Structures are given as C-alpha cells and as structure tokens.
C-alpha cells in the first residue's frame, strides 16, 4: 500500500513539474519574444503542434538560466577568494623566506627573501637538496627527520640555525607545510621562515652583558683595529667612573696606562694573527697587582673583537709570597745541616783527617754523592718556586757567547771527567752576543751539558755550537747518546719528569733541571727544544734574541719587581 502511495506521489510531482515548466516556458516565450520567435522559426516549437518539445526546451532553458546565474555568483566568489589568497601570498612572500621543495627535499622554488637572506641566487639552489642549508654534518638527518613528519601529514615548526652562502649563521623560525594531491600523495612542501637572528643576538647580547656585569674581573671589549671601546662591564665602569655611553665614546688606552703599555704593536699583531690564542701580562693598576689576559674573540655578529680581562691577583701574589717564604725557609733549614754533612764528608774524603781504607773511602763517596743530590733537589725546588712566583731575579748584561761558552766548558769539566767524555766547543760566529743574565744562562748550560755528559757513551764527545738564526742565536749541545724515547718527548720539560732510561742506563737527577732551563730561557724571550734519534743522539738547543733584540728580560724583571 505504502509502495503505491509513494509511486503516486512521485508521479504527481512529475506532472506538477511539467506543468510548471510549461507555464514558465510560456511565460518565457511571451517575455522573451526573441527566443519564442526563433524557436517558432526553427520549427522546433509550435505551441499547438509540438507541445512536448516546447516543454522540454523551456525546461532546459530554465535550467541553463539558473545554472548561468549560479556560475556567475561562484566566479565572483572565487575571484574574491583568489584576490584574498594572492594578497596573502604576497604578504607572506614579502614577510617570510619562502622555499618550496619536492618530497625528496629538493628545492623547486625560492622567493626573493630567500635569495637575500642566504645570499644564493635561485639558480644556485633550485634542484639541490636543501640539507646544504644546515651547518652541521647532520644536515641530511635533520632534513629526513622533518620529511618523515611531513609525510605523515603533520606540519613541522621549530627554530633552526642555518648556514648562509658566506658561512654566517642565520637563526630562523621555520614552519614546513606538506601539500598533498587529490589522491593523498605528498607532492611538495612549503617552507616559511622568519629571520630572527638579530632578535636572538640582541637577546644574547643583553644576557651576555648582564652576565659580564656580575663578573668579579674588569672586562673590556674593543675594536682590534682602532681600539675603540665597544663594551666595558660594571666592575670596570665603577673603577673608571664611566657610564655605558661614555664607555662607547672612549679609547681603550683611556682605561689606564697599563693598556697603553700592554697593547704594543707586536702584541696586537700576535693576538690578531692568532699566533697565540691569548696573551697574559702582569702589571700594577692603581697600586693593585693585576693580571691582564687579552684574547681575540668574535662578536655575535661575527666581527673580530679584542677582549681583555683584568683580574686582581693581590691575594694570589700574597699566597705566592708566603709559599716562597716557606720554601725559602725550608731550603735554608735543609742547607744548614747539609753544610755540616757535606763538609764532614769532604774533609774525610780529602784525607786531611787521616788516611781512609778503600772500603771506607767507597762508603764516604756514596754519602757525598747523595748529599750532593739532596742539595741539588733543594736548590732546584727553590729555583722553580722563584720562577713560578716571578721572584727569580735577572741581571741582564751583554754576554759574549764565545767567552761565555768557554767558561761553561771549563765550569762543567767536572761532569766530563766524571762521565769520561769530552766537551768540544765549536767557535761561534764572530760578534755573537746576547743580552742575558749570564749566571742564569750558565745554569741552563750546566743543565744541558751535565745531561749530555751523563747520557753519552764513555769516551764520547759532546759538541757545543752556535748558529746564527737572523735575529736569534741558537746554542746547541749535542751528544751521541741513545736518544730520548718517543714516549718521553711530550713531557720532557714538565716538572719532576725524567726521560725513561735507555739500555739500562740509570741517570741521577731531580727531574726539575729541564723545567728550570725552559723557564729561564723563556724569561729571556727565547725558546728551548731538542732533536733526537736512536742513531743520531740528542741535541738540546735554545734560541735567544741577539743583543739589541732582547728587551724582554728587563720587562719581565720590571713586572716581577713591580708586583712585589
């Protein structure tokens, strides 16, 4: 029953529809005579002859009219939407760094902002996998990590550090949007980036400045070329009575004479060239002993800057002084009994107290040898302490190397006799003179010559020679010993280090001699080194500036005494 009603309803509706269509067609033919005439003329429509055709045509025309209106409306809407989207795209492109990549992360398109920010032309980047924009070697893994997220249909957002063509770092806020086709296939990715480098740097600068303001040291940041101040921290401003504004208008040398004295052209050249990562000097600043550490850094904008830390070292100096006094006192307390021991043994051995049997003499020699060794340790510890605390006194004068080395050969002849070797002095080039403390340099020579004698085979020769190195003179002491094992090379000049014995040859020593020699040579503005091989023996050498090129001892001495 229900089925019949339903069919009836549909049929009624269709008839009603046809009626309405006929009505509208008639209306149309009267209101649009042109269409009516043309339809009549065409023979397709004759109100009385072919009413079914007329109804159908009228119906179609009505539908077309409706559809046309709808399309027009939709086109207008689409136009509006398109304009909005175009505007948005332009706005995004004007504001953001935009790149479009394929699913394999190859760049398809970049905007002008991209070119400007990274310094590449679009031709240089299109077709490349955009992992090259990442500064670390894991750029590829970062790209694939983002890609896998995008493939799953999710947007990726985050902050990234990217590399521009000039190797500068760009800090960007990135958003990557995956685009899918109608089949749900990932076809491309749009990356939108905003350069936040300046903002981040500004934040970092503020953070850095507030950290540096809490530091107990005075900190100065200045231009390495014109030495104009770029920043001084609170501690420095307080001493100088500067405001931040005054600081920015100042020259670093206005911060104190110590800067003028320290920042010599040669020091600036050394630091700027990167020959030494940092330089350290001691000085008096308003009567306080300070340490000035200067190093070349790069600011957050990548530009080179010089940074000097000025540290109050009065407490350290005081502690060093106390330590030196203690060591000096211990040294004195040890020397006094040693004087008696050595004196007694010396008198016994000499026979002035009566003849000794061979056995007794042998035992006395052992005792004397070891008391000498003990004295050497005491002397060396005191020396190293004086050197470390800057209290070793230097009295530089012009030293003629020829006579100096002759004296060294004579003074150390005892070692030659003891070890059964011969010192051979090669005459130095004419006019070889140094500006040095001859006593201290004699100490260096004694150390090198005694070592060479001890390590030489009996009957061997130790050669002492001088080489002109331009502004420097090289003094070498060469033996034909077994050489220094490779594992001892690195630490040979460290405290309490002795080369490993070779071929069972045990050699006495404190392990301080070379460390002292190195310090003394360096205090003269020179350097010490060695060349060794199992067949060729060992050559220890030191290079010192020729007289006239060596103001450094006096400077160091002045620093050491000024800080007292």
């Amino acid at each position, binding site marked *: 029953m229900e089925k019949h009603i339903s069919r009836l309803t549909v049929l009624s509706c269709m008839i009603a529809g046809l009626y309405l269509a006929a009505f509208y067609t008639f209306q149309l033919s009267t209101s649009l005579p042109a269409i009516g005439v043309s339809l009549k003329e065409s023979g397709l429509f004759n109100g009385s002859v072919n009413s079914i055709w007329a109804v159908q045509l009228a119906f179609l025309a009505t539908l077309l009219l409706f559809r046309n209106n709808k399309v027009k409306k939709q086109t207008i809407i689409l136009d509006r939407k398109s304009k909005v989207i175009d505007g948005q795209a332009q706005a995004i492109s004007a504001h953001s760094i935009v790149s479009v990549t394929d699913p394999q992360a190859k760049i398809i398109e970049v905007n002008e902002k991209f070119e400007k920010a990274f310094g590449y032309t679009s031709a240089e980047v299109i077709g490349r996998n955009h992992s090259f924009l990442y500064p670390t070697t894991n750029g590829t893994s970062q790209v694939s990590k983002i890609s896998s997220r995008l493939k799953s249909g999710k947007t990726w957002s985050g902050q990234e550090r990217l590399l521009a063509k000039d190797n500068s770092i760009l800090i960007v806020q990135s958003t990557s949007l995956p685009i899918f086709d109608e089949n749900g296939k990932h076809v491309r990715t749009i990356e939108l980036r905003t350069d936040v480098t300046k903002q981040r740097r500004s934040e970092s600068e503020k953070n850095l400045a507030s950290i540096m303001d809490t530091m107990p040291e005075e900190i100065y940041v200045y231009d390495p070329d014109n030495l104009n101040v770029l920043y001084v921290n609170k501690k420095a401003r307080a001493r100088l009575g500067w405001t931040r504004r005054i600081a920015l208008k100042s020259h670093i040398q206005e911060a104190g004479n110590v800067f003028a004295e320290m920042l010599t052209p040669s020091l600036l050249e050394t630091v700027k060239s990167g020959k030494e990562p940092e330089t350290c000097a001691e000085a008096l600043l308003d009567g306080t002993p300070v340490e000035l550490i200067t190093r070349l850094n790069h600011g957050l904008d990548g530009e080179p800057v010089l940074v000097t830390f000025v540290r109050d070292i009065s407490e350290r100096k005081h502690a060093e002084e106390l330590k030196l006094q203690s060591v000096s006192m211990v040294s*004195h307390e040890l020397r006094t009994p040693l004087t008696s021991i050595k*004196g*007694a043994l*010396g*008198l016994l051995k*000499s026979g002035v107290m009566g003849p000794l049997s061979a056995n007794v003499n042998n035992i006395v020699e052992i005792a004397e040898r070891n008391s000498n060794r003990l004295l050497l340790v005491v002397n060396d510890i*005191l020396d190293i302490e004086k050197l470390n605390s800057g209290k070793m006194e230097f*009295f530089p004068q012009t030293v003629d190397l020829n006579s100096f080395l002759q004296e060294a050969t004579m003074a150390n002849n005892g070692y030659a006799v003891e070890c059964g070797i011969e010192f051979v002095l090669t005459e130095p080039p004419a006019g070889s003179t140094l500006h040095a403390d001859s006593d201290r340099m004699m100490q260096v020579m004694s150390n090198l010559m005694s070592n060479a004698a001890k390590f030489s085979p009996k009957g061997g020769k130790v050669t002492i020679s001088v080489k002109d190195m331009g502004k420097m003179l090289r003094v070498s002491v060469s033996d034909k010993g077994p050489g220094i094992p490779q594992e001892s090379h690195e630490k040979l000049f460290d405290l309490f280090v002795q080369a490993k014995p070779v071929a069972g040859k045990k050699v006495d020593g404190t392990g301080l001699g070379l460390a002292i020699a190195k310090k003394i040579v360096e205090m003269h503005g020179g350097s010490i080194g060695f060349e060794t091989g199992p067949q060729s023996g060992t050559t220890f050498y030191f290079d010192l500036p020729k007289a006239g090129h060596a103001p450094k001892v006096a400077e160091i001495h002045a620093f050491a005494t000024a800080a007292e």
Partner: protein
Amino acid sequence: MSDLTKILHVDDDDDIRQIALVSLEVVGGFNVHQCSSGKQALDEAEAFAPDLLLLDVMMPEMDGIETWQHLIAKESLAKTPAIFMTAKAEDSTSKKLLDSGAIAVITKPFDPMQLADQLRKAWNDYFAS
C-alpha cells in the same frame, strides 16, 4: 796589603763551626778564632784583632749584618773586611751584602777543601782593586 792570617769566624751552628775550623786551620793554615753569637764576637773581637771577619748571616738574637755593623763601629775594627756565609741562596741577599761593603758572599754548603782559597782570593781581589 798585609797577609791574611787571622780570621774571626762567627756562626751559631756548632757543627759548621767545627767543619770550618778544620777547613781554615788544617787546610788553609789560618789562625782562627770562633764565636757562637754576635754578642760573643763583640766581646772578643778587639782582643783577637782579626784581619778578616767571616760571619754567618742568619743567627738568633743578633744576625750577621747587625754584628758586622757593631764590629766595624769599633775603631780598631773599622777597616776590617768582612765575608758573609749564608744558607739563603737568594741573589738579592748577596747583592745587598756586597752593596753594603762585604767583600764576598759564600753560599752554604761550602766546599771545606776550597773555603780557605775562596777567602784568600776575595782578600787579594779586595786589596788589588
């Protein structure tokens, strides 16, 4: 220049005095008078009338420098040269002493077989200059 024969040696350390006595008398052949303190030296120096003062620097109560100042304040000893012995190995100590008029500074421990020669050499150099 007279010969160096009489030496006044002042040192508070008994053992060192004994060693020095053998060095100076037996090895060096000098006439030696020894004192264990500055005060004793001030009491006995003039009577001994030494050619040379050999003084230890670090001594309790009155150190070597003070002893020397008091000794040369005495008219009969005013021109007596002094040599110091010190276990303090600092260059500044030696320099100060030499600048103050000491003719030599000998660092302890000294070589007992060389001590006499060291004194003679310093004496000769002083009078030769």
